[in-house]
């Protein structure tokens, strides 16, 4: 198993008082240390109940939960919770406390020294990408996205090995949500926590999860797999219908442009000279060609003007409409190609260096492979 604190659920059952049907029935789940596991399912599937049993906000009716091999019932509830970060959809910042005080909640309870708390708080707001000038503000003075960042900082304050997140990005608008999701992944690359995250958004599950657990009503575990494995091969009708009709499209968001073979494609380097370019054009089935000069993409040219000019300098290449980074997902590449109505997107890195072309056909092949 990788480094980090593993969480194991064995035969975990929860039947709420006054209910005959269990909300979670005999659930077994292994969360590898340092990984992100996403719990997803329709409402009433017990995903939030499962999450809240891990920090004993809800006590299981049966079964065992261990963190780092230790039964969570062996520790006092408050001590256990202080060692587990907790982030909820409505954030739940303390409105009467400043941002600094909110973030310092657990360190203060743990009796840290003032200087240590201050240093830690500043470190955390930097980590979650907030400006330090916000520290003395009250929560009501922050936007929803900023509040959620404070919520994450507060959860991470005492450096807990485990982080529980209950629909953390459910209350922010889609643009901010996408940004927060990417930030969470960047953050995770630095802090390596064991994260259990609940969502009802399958796209979020696919983007964030190292593994995804699909739960059915009554806490039945339908499938527990990597996002790609699940999208490629759903274990049941239920999982397939839950993943939706666009499974292939969703899989595209799991692969990067750089995963594709970018060497081929209809382009030519100007160093081959006018004759070389004409020869390449003759081979191009589309009747047009990309021109590259010193690792820069200059533009597209078509056959007729090429036949008419005396020198490559007389050409007037059309600038590319679709440009994309190697780290972009195939889904983004597809989106860009379709909206720009180009046949291919030009792949360039941050410095504008040409890396290759992506065509629709290459995306299709990527999905099949």
């Amino acid at each position, binding site marked *: 198993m990788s480094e980090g604190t593993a969480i194991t659920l064995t035969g975990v059952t929860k039947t709420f008082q006054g209910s005959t049907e269990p909300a979670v029935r005999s659930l077994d789940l292994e969360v590898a240390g340092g990984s992100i596991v996403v719990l997803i399912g329709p409402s009433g599937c017990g995903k939030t109940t499962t999450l809240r049993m891990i920090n004993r906000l809800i006590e299981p009716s049966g079964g065992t939960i261990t963190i780092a091999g230790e039964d969570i019932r062996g520790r006092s509830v408050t001590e256990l919770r*202080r060692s587990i970060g907790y982030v909820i959809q409505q954030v*739940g910042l303390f409105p009467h406390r400043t941002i600094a005080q909110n973030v310092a*909640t657990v360190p203060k309870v743990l009796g840290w020294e003032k200087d240590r708390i201050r240093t830690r708080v500043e470190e955390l707001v930097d980590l979650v990408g907030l400006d330090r000038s916000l520290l003395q503000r009250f929560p009501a003075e922050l936007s929803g996205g900023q509040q959620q960042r404070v919520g994450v900082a507060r959860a991470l304050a005492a450096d807990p090995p485990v982080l529980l997140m209950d629909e953390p990005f459910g209350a922010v608008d889609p643009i901010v949500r996408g940004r927060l999701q990417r930030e969470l992944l960047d953050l995770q690359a630095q802090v390596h926590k064991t994260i259990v995250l609940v969502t009802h958004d399958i796209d979020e599950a696919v983007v964030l999860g190292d593994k995804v657990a699909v739960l059915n009503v009554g806490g039945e575990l339908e499938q527990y797999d990597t996002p790609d494995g699940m999208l490629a091969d759903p274990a049941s009708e239920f999982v397939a219908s839950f993943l939706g009709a666009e499974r292939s499209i969703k899989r595209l968001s799991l692969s990067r442009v750089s995963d594709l073979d970018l060497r081929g494609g209809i382009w030519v380097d100007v160093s081959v000279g006018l004759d070389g370019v004409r020869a390449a054009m003759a081979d191009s089935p589309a009747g047009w060609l990309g021109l590259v000069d010193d690792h820069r993409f200059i533009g597209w040219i078509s056959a007729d003007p090429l036949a008419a000019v005396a020198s490559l300098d007389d050409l007037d290449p059309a600038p590319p409409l679709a440009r994309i980074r190697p780290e972009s997902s195939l889904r983004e590449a597809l989106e860009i190609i379709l909206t720009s109505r180009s046949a291919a997107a030009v792949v360039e890195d941050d410095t504008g260096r040409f890396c290759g072309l992506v065509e629709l056909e290459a995306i299709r092949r990527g999905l099949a492979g």
Partner: protein
Amino acid sequence: MTRRHALAWGGGAVALVVAALWARAQIAGLDVETQATNPIVRWEWVFLREETRTELWDATYQHLELTFIAVGAGTVISAALSAVALRLRWSLTPITAFTGFLYTIPSVALFGLLRSRFGNVVAAEVALTSYTLLVLVRNMVAGIDGVPAAVTDAADGLGLSRSRRLLTVELPLALPVIVAGLRVATVTTVGLVGITAIIQLGGLGSLIFDGFGTQYYTKIVVGSVLSVLLAVVLDLMFNRLEILLTPWARRRVAQ
């Protein structure tokens, strides 16, 4: 000045005018001789008589004392009742019903009834205290209940103990509502204290009763004015307190 303050001041002013008109009508019914020696306000009694200052000061002090003991005891009892109601939800209805029942007993009857069992001061305080319970318990429970569920959930999830959650999260957030209850309780008690004059207490109330007994209207007017002033000043003080205790409630930035 808020709308509520405008109402308080306006109400006080109307009460004074009504009192003055009533006193004037009484005086009109007196014979010429008495009226000549007994105008509505005898300023020389208020400002020149040496004993008046001590008498007024003592009466005001007693009025405040009766008020604060009643509100103080009411706060302690209400806190205990609220704690029970918050822990055992089912008990809220009977507690509200009981404090509501106390509130409906006519004060004059209650003072007289209790006086036959206890001394004057105890009788007055027991009655005054019982009248504060309804509004205090209701506001304490409403204040704590008003703390957003997400906030208490986060507090629990972060590992705050129950007592720490109450002291550092719930109470501070409930404070505006609790202070609002204290404010209403205090202002009503200031008014009720006057009635304890029927059992020989009453602070400024005894001044008013005295004035009726001797048909010395200056005392009635001075007692009433001071009583209203006391209520308004305390009301304003609680308003300031509420603002001081909740700096976070006003600092909002337009998003």
